[in-house]
């Protein structure tokens, strides 16, 4: 192709702005989900029944509702009870809450990979449940979770595109604008696709590196 599509120059600006929003949403939502997910996982493996029930209830609720439905519910439901946040804040918060349920399950599965003998040894040493989780189980478990967590990270990055459906002009939203303006859906969505693939490939590569570094040879 020798001729650049009409308006390419004017197109890159908005798409670049959209990319910034996408990256910011991904980073904030994933960090938030990770923090909440760790708490939830601790709840789910804790010896205290009410905490376990709380963790299970949370995961069941958030993991079984489509993210798009949650987004619409939060974006249009919260203002009805008097909480009008910016679209960006609402959407990022919703995504953090949603993906926390998945991260919780990744962590729980990771914790299961720690041999039972480790927990028994910790108890034999006189550590409390909290101490053994914090000093013995989690540090080992986290290492086996690098790839699964990277998968969740990729899913978070791709799911930010749903924000376009509730009015956030992140990368997909900007692509819609550009399409409306230039009627070149293939061009704008092809460019967007390339960027999404770059994001996911990069995170996959980084996760691979981290995994090799922290792996425990057993």
């Amino acid at each position, binding site marked *: 192709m020798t001729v650049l599509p009409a308006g390419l120059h004017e197109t890159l600006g908005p798409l670049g702005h959209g990319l910034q929003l996408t990256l910011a949403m991904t980073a904030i939502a994933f960090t938030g989900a990770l923090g909440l997910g760790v708490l939830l996982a601790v709840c789910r493996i804790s010896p205290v029944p009410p905490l376990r029930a709380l963790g299970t209830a949370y995961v069941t609720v958030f993991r079984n509702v*489509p993210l*798009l*439905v949650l987004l*619409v*519910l939060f974006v*249009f*439901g919260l*203002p*009805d009870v008097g909480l*009008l946040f910016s*679209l960006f804040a609402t959407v990022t918060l919703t995504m953090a809450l949603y993906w926390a349920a998945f991260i919780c399950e990744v962590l729980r599965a990771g914790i299961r990979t720690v041999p039972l003998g480790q927990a028994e040894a910790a108890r034999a040493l006189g550590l409390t449940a909290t101490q053994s989780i914090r000093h013995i189980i989690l540090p080992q478990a986290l290492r086996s979770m690098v790839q699964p967590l990277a998968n969740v990270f990729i899913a978070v990055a791709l799911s930010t595109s*749903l924000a*376009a*459906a*509730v*009015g956030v*002009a992140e990368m997909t*939203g900007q692509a*819609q*604008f550009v399409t*409306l*303006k230039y009627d070149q*859906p293939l061009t704008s969505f092809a460019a967007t696709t390339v960027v999404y693939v770059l994001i996911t490939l990069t995170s996959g590569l980084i996760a691979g590196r981290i995994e090799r570094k922290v792996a425990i040879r057993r």
Partner: protein
Amino acid sequence: MKARIRTSARTLAATALTAALATALAACGSSGSLPAPSGSGSHPAGAPTFQQVIDGAPVAPDSAIPAGSLMAKIKARGTLNVGGTDASALFSLKDPVTGKLTGFDAGLAQMLAKYITGKPSVNLVLVTADTRETLLQNATVDSVFATYTITPARAQKVAFAGPYYSSGDAILVAKGNTSITKVADLANKTVCTESSSTAANDLKQYAPSAHVILFQTNAECEQAVEQGRADAYVLDQALLLGDQVRDPKVKVVGQPFTTEPYGIGLPLASPEMKTFVNDWLKTLESDGEWTKLWQSTIGTVLSGDAPTPPAIGSAQGS
């Protein structure tokens, strides 16, 4: 309408989901306001009801329907196949109780069916902006009545009778809002519109400094205005009026600032049908049927006298 229901395949499922949920939410939010403006509701004194208009509609003389024409085929079948919608207040809305369609488009479709077959027998096929041309080309429907804006590009694929109605982009705001009355007031305001509508483009032209938010559905845009997330909602006036009917918390302000001529989509392969439908439209307009239909539908929410229908063939592509 230009593109209200132009839904890309990518977002079809998403739209369906969001629409369902947003409608449910909107229903909660607007405390029991019922949709469905019925023909007998708030129409001005002396104006005919929707049913009276249909009952009084003319039937074509046999001489107007030559053998071998598409009209003759429809007459033999006894039913007019119409592409349209059942969810557009004022234009084509299904009454959930009786199952009957009312509205300006629905009325015209029934009147055309009656003109050809002698009774207002219509078989409605739901269409979207993506499927209208195809359904006409493959003869699934004989005609499309769907706030279908005539454009030269579309006229390459289908024939347009009309225009039978002229609408345009208008502004919807919350009931208490007095700061926005015309398109110039949208400068530096947050304005939402539907993501597949070309109103977003019109906004770039008429209100370049407005901050535009795209939502998937009409209900979401309406909700955003009601909740104060957006200052205004811009879309075809005809559709915004439908929102105003259903939701007492919003109102349409000012006059349309673009022009959307609505046409009746017909198969390009049957040119005799276009001539026939145009002649029928002229009859309706000169006999006052058009005005009566307007009074019993759009006129129930729009104050003032019925407008003069746009001249047949006046739109580029008709």
